[in-house]
């Protein structure tokens, strides 16, 4: 049994040789490519995850951007509509004002011309009445003066008036 704890030189020799050889060969042809492939794969996974996260963030940003743009557009539209409505109101109001002024002007001139016509008519009527009155008076006088005594009476009256003056 003492053989059990006596290291034998032959086995140490072969073991050292074999281990160094296997370490060299595996180190060069197995562990290096395996570890490289593993770390490359891990890197790829990490990159893919990062890209996915970035894409998600971008999408969220894009979405909020879109929303903002939409809101802006909506605001713009509302503004434009309001402006249009205002312009329309202004135009209508202006037109109304102008129409009112024109109407007033026409009315005023109509009233003037009516007044003028009226005055003219009144004057003519007056003239007509005066003329007719003169004619009537002439006729009456003629009829009155066709009788002598009456002519005399008138003369006397006229003379009386003159003497009184």
């Amino acid at each position, binding site marked *: 049994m003492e*053989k059990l704890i006596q290291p034998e030189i032959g086995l140490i020799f072969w073991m050292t040789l074999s281990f160094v050889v296997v*370490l060299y060969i595996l180190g060069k042809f197995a*562990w290096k490519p395996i570890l490289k492939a593993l770390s490359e794969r891990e890197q790829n996974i990490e990159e893919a995850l990062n890209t996915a996260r970035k894409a998600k963030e971008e999408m969220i940003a894009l979405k909020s951007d879109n929303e903002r743009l939409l809101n802006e557009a909506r605001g713009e539209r509302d503004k434009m509509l309001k402006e249009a409505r205002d312009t329309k109101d202004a135009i209508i109001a202006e037109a109304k004002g102008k129409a009112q002024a024109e109407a007033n002007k026409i009315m005023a001139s109509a009233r003037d011309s009516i007044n003028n016509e009226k005055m003219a008519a009144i004057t003519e009527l007056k003239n007509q009445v005066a003329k007719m009155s003169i004619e009537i008076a002439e006729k009456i006088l003629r009829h009155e003066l066709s009788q002598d005594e009456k002519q005399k009476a008138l003369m006397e009256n006229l003379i009386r008036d003159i003497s009184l003056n």
Partner: protein
Amino acid sequence: MYCIHPVRVSSLKPILLSILFLFLSLHIFAEGGEGNKKFNAGELIGNHITDSHEWHIAGHLAIPLPVILYTPGKGLSASMYNKLEEGEMDGFKLDAKHNIIASDGSKFYDFSITKNVLSLFISILLMLWIFTSVAKSYKRREGQAPKGLQSALEPIILFVRDDVAKASIGEKKFMKYMPFLLTVFFFIWINNLMGLFPFFPGGANLTGNIAVTMTLALITLVVVAFSANKNYWMHIVAMPGVPKGILFLLTPIEILGFFLRPFVLMVRLFANITAGHIIALSFFSLIFIFGEMNVGVGYGVAVFSLAFTVFMAMLELLVAFLQAYVFTLLSAIYIGAATEEHHHNHDHPEAHVEEAAIV
């Protein structure tokens, strides 16, 4: 994470084969045991867990292995073990205990391809085949999900990388030591598993051999010694912030500790694996010991022994992984301690207690 499925599936085969083997061998023993030499459990176990110049397959069938001997001044001499069994060869012969001795009593070194060396070569070829093919599938299936053997081993490689190397050595330097740690881990694990497999090419007690664990521990020591920075050596030779009087006491302890760590690595692996083999074989031997008394008793004991052997096989599968993990983890911790950058307010006593707890 610990790749339970492949282990569980592969563990069934050796167990089923063990059951078959058990009943076959019991018959052989019952027939041939009469009048022949008595069954010696100690010898059986001793022969199994130590090295040998032949590989025993079954019954009287054994593969003789090449014997390579070096005598200083005389040079190398090589032959096959069965030639030596027949008689003297090249000035070497076998003594009564079947040990090789030189006829003239001169000193020589045994560089033979023993059972353990052959097992070592087989396991190494297996490792080279497994991991170069896995590496190839990483190249072939670049950027794709792992498949087959690649997907079975990837979690373990990642486990060694993330939970052993990165955790113990640190983010910056661990990559340099990954080839060493992965090789150590898989070397120990595969050889542990091969040791559990009862037939050729398994069954050698390679990782339970002190020469093998010593070599592994020495390689770790060399790696630590070559990667240690000034800070680490300073901590061993003259721990900063410690009074001079205490340094006389502390420095020898630290120097001893430097060698004790790999020594503990060596003993732990050796003892765990050898103990596992001894226990498993002891249960087997029970059957033969009782079978020698009475064949019926032998069968009766076989049921219990078998249950225990199956239980032990399960436990040994866990131990196989665990010891590979522990050896690799502690190697990584030693490397981590040796390459650690200087910290000003580092709490030394606590760090040492922590380390001692792991040991």
